[in-house]
C-alpha cells in the first residue's frame, strides 16, 4: 500500500547557514503518484529528499512546519521508504554485492530464503550480472549506483526516493534502469519521487512535476501543464530547468556553442600531443587490466569524448593519460609542444610542477581536488602556481566565477557547496591555468541547464585557446556541444574509434 506525502510550511535550515536550505513549502503528493522533482543546482532538492526519507540528522539543522508520510512524521525505521543517495560511492554498505543488496531486507526482517531469491532478481533487474560474492570495492561508479538501486528494488518500499539515480549510468543502460524502477513501482504501486536532470528520460513516465525555485515551490502539476505553459516555460528556463525538446533553444541565445565548434578539417590540422600504442590500463596493484589494446592519437586543440558502458575502464584510462597512474602495458607518450622540455616522454615520470601546467585532470569526485579554504582561492591556486601576475589571476578568477554562477559563493568553503556547485568548481579550478591538455571525468554531473551551458562555454573557450579536451562523459549532448570525437571503450574487448564528429551524428541527450 502506497503512502501520500504532505507538507505544510515545511522548511529546513542547516545549522551553519543563515538562509533556508528548503522551503517554506506546501506539498501534496498522492499515494502511488510518480513525481519528478526539479530545480536549479543548489535549490535544496537533495535536502528535501533526505527530509522525506527521515534521515536528516536532527542535530545538523532546524526544521519548521510539518511533514507527513501517510499520517505520521517521517521515520525510516518503519521501513516504508527506500532512499538512493546521490553519491554512489558512500552508500555501499558491505564488502560483498549479495550482502549489500540483502541489507534492507534483513532490516525489514524478511526470512532468509525470501532474501536469497530477491537478491538475484533485483541484481538482474538492475542489469548487474555479478556473482553474489563479488567485492563491492571492485565496482565502478555506475555499477555502485545500480547496486544501491537493487537494494531498494529488493525492499519493495511504499515510498521510493531517488536522488539522480542515473547520473553515473551510461545512456543506453539508463533507460533499462528507469524501466526497472517503473516496474518496481508498478508491482508495488509505491509513491516515487525522483530528482533527475535528465528530464526527457522520465517525463513521459511521471504523473506530476514539482519545481523548486530559489525561494520555495515554483510550481506543481502534470508534465503537460508545467511544460505546456509558455509563461511558465520562461520561468523554468530562467531557473535552469531542462525544458524537454528544446535542447537547442537552451544554447540558442547569444552564446550558441554549436556554431563556434571548429570544423573537422581544422581539428585534424593540430599536431599529435598524446599518443598511446597497445596501451593497457589498470588501477594500481590490480592484476587484471581494466582495458587493453588502446591506440589513441590525441591532437592539439581537439575534443575527444571517451564513452562506454559502466566498468569499461574509462576513468582508469583517464588517470593513465593524465600521467597519474603507471601504464599496465604499452606506453603513453607526450609529443610535439606537449613533450617539449620534458626529459622523458611518459607523463607519469614528470614532476608534479612540470605536469600540472601541461596536463590537467578533473577527478570523478570533486571533493578530492579541493586544497584551499575558499572558492576564489581555489580558482586562483593554479594560475598562481603557473606564475601569472596578480592582476591576471584576479581577472581569470572573476571571469570563471561569473561564467559558472559562483560569484555569491566566492568566499564559501569548497567542501560546503552543493553537489553540482562542487562539480563546476573542480572543473574551473583545473581549467584556470589553461593546461595544454585537460582531461575531465563526468564534467556535467548534477548540472541544470544554465550551469551546463556555462560549462560548455568554458570548454569551448579552452578549445579556442588551442588546448585539448579529453572528456569522459555519458552526456552526449555535452560531447556534441564541444564537438568531440568519440572513442568507444569496451573493457576487455578491442576498442574502436568512431571517426564521426558532432556535426554528422546529432544524437539526443538520451538515446
Amino acid at each position: 500500500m502506497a503512502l501520500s506525502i504532505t507538507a505544510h510550511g515545511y522548511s529546513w535550515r542547516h545549522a551553519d547557514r543563515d538562509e533556508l536550505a528548503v522551503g517554506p513549502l506546501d506539498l501534496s503528493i498522492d499515494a502511488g503518484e510518480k513525481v519528478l522533482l526539479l530545480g536549479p543546482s543548489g535549490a535544496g532538492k537533495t535536502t528535501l529528499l533526505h527530509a522525506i526519507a527521515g534521515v536528516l540528522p536532527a542535530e545538523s539543522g532546524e526544521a519548521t512546519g510539518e511533514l507527513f508520510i501517510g499520517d505520521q512524521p517521517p521515520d525510516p525505521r518503519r521501513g516504508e521508504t527506500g532512499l538512493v543517495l546521490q553519491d554512489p560511492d558512500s552508500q555501499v554498505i558491505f564488502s560483498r554485492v549479495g550482502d549489500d543488496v540483502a541489507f534492507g531486507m534483513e532490516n525489514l526482517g524478511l526470512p532468509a530464503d525470501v532474501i536469497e531469491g530477491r537478491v538475484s532478481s533485483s541484481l538482474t533487474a538492475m542489469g548487474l550480472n555479478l556473482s553474489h560474492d563479488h567485492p563491492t570495492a571492485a565496482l565502478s561508479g555506475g555499477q555502485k549506483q545500480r547496486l544501491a538501486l537493487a537494494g531498494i528494488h529488493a525492499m519493495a518500499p511504499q515510498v521510493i526516493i531517488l536522488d539522480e539515480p542515473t547520473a553515473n549510468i551510461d545512456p543506453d543502460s539508463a533507460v533499462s534502469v528507469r524501466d526497472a524502477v517503473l516496474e518496481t513501482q508498478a508491482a508495488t504501486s509505491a509513491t516515487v519521487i525522483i530528482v533527475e536532470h535528465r528530464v526527457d528520460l522520465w517525463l513521459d513516465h511521471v504523473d506530476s512535476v514539482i519545481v523548486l525555485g530559489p525561494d520555495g515551490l515554483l510550481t506543481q502539476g502534470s508534465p503537460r501543464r508545467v511544460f505546456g505553459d509558455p509563461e511558465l516555460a520562461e520561468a523554468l528556463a530562467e531557473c535552469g530547468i531542462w525544458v524537454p525538446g528544446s535542447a537547442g533553444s537552451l544554447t540558442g541565445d547569444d552564446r550558441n556553442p554549436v556554431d563556434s565548434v571548429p570544423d573537422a578539417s581544422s581539428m585534424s590540422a593540430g599536431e599529435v600531443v598524446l599518443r598511446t600504442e597497445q596501451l593497457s590500463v589498470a588501477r594500481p596493484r590490480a592484476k587484471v587490466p581494466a582495458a587493453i589494446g588502446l591506440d589513441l592519437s590525441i591532437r592539439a586543440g581537439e575534443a575527444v569524448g571517451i564513452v562506454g558502458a559502466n566498468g569499461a575502464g574509462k576513468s582508469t584510462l583517464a588517470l593513465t593519460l593524465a600521467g597519474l597512474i603507471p601504464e599496465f602495458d604499452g606506453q603513453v607518450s607526450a609529443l610535439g609542444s606537449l613533450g617539449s622540455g620534458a626529459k622523458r616522454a611518459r607523463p607519469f615520470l614528470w614532476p608534479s610542477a612540470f605536469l600540472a601546467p601541461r596536463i590537467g585532470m578533473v577527478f570523478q569526485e570533486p571533493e578530492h581536488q579541493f586544497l584551499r579554504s575558499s572558492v576564489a582561492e581555489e580558482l586562483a591556486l593554479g594560475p598562481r602556481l603557473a606564475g601569472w601576475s596578480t592582476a591576471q589571476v584576479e581577472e581569470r578568477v572573476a571571469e570563471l566565477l561569473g561564467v559558472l554562477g559562483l560569484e555569491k559563493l566566492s568566499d564559501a568553503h569548497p567542501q560546503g557547496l552543493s553537489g553540482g556547485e562542487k562539480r563546476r568548481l573542480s572543473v574551473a579550478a583545473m581549467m584556470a591555468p589553461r593546461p595544454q591538455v585537460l582531461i575531465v571525468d563526468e564534467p556535467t554531473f548534477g548540472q541544470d541547464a544554465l550551469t551546463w551551458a556555462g560549462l560548455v562555454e568554458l570548454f569551448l573557450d579552452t578549445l579556442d585557446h588551442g588546448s585539448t579536451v579529453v572528456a569522459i562523459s555519458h552526456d552526449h549532448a555535452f560531447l556534441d556541444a564541444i564537438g568531440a570525437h568519440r572513442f568507444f571503450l569496451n573493457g576487455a574487448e578491442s576498442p574502436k574509434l568512431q571517426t564521426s564528429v558532432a556535426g554528422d551524428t546529432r544524437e539526443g541527450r538520451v538515446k
Partner: protein
Amino acid sequence: MSEALSPPSAVDKIGAPEVTVHDPGQLIPIVRRTPLVRCNPLTKIAVALILMVGTLLSIDVVSAGVVLGFCLFGLPATGLDLRAGLKRLWFLPLGALLAAWGTAILAEKTGAVVIDLGPILMTTGSLGAAAAIFLRALALAIPLIVLASTIDPRDLSDALVQRLRLPEVVVVSVLAASRLLGLLVSEWQTLSMARRARGIAGGSIVRRTGSLFAGIFVLLVQSIRRGTTLAMAMEGRAFGRPGRTWRRTSTFGSGDCVALVVSLTVCVLAIVAAHMFGTWNPIVGG
C-alpha cells in the same frame, strides 16, 4: 561462477589464472576455497588462540618449532596465494631475524662461547634463546596472518551476532565502518594523485609538508562526509528497526571439529615435546 568476470585474454599476462575478482582490501588473496577457509570464523579464532597458547607458554626451540612446523605444513590448506603473501609480508621473517640478533647479543651468556668479536659476544646459550625467539615470532605471526586473511568480516559479524549474541546494531555498524577504514587507503592514493595533478606535490620540504597537511585535512573532511552519508544510506534502508533477520545462518560443521581437535593436539604435542626434550622454559613461575 566467475567465468564472466575475468577477461580470458589477460590470463597469460599474469601467470596464474585468476579464479575470481579479488577484494582490493584483502591482506592476502584466497585462491582456493579449502575446508579450512569454509570453517566458522569463531573456529578460526579459536584455532589461532590455541596455537598461540602452545607457543606463548614457554620460550624454547622445541614447542615453538612444533607449532611453526605444523603451521608451515598446514599452509597449503589455507587456500591463500602464498606467493602474493610472501611478496607483501617479506619483512616478517626479516623482523624475526632482527629480534633474534638482538637476543643473541643481549641474552644471558651461558654455555660455550661461539663468536667473540669484542662487543659482539655469542654463546650457545644466547644463540639458543635467539633461535627460540625467531621460531616463536614466526609461529605467532603465521596463524594471525592466516586468520586475518581468511576471515570474511561479514561471516564474522554473522557469527558474533548469531552465536555469541552480541548486539546486532553495534556489530553491523562496526562492520560497515570497517569497510570505510579500508577505503581510506585508496582515498589517500586518489588524494595524492589529485595533489600531483594540481601541481603542488613534490618541491621543497616546506611545500611538501604544506601539501601533506592540506591532503590530511581533505581526508578528514572526506571521512566525516562518507561516514555521515553511510549512516544516512543505512538509515534510509530501515537500519535500526527491531526484528532484523540474517541472510546466512552461521553454522558449525564437522570441519570445525577437525580444526579444533587438530590444533589442540598440536598444542599439547608442543608442550609435551618441550618437556620430553627438557627444554621447557615457562614465561611465568619459571
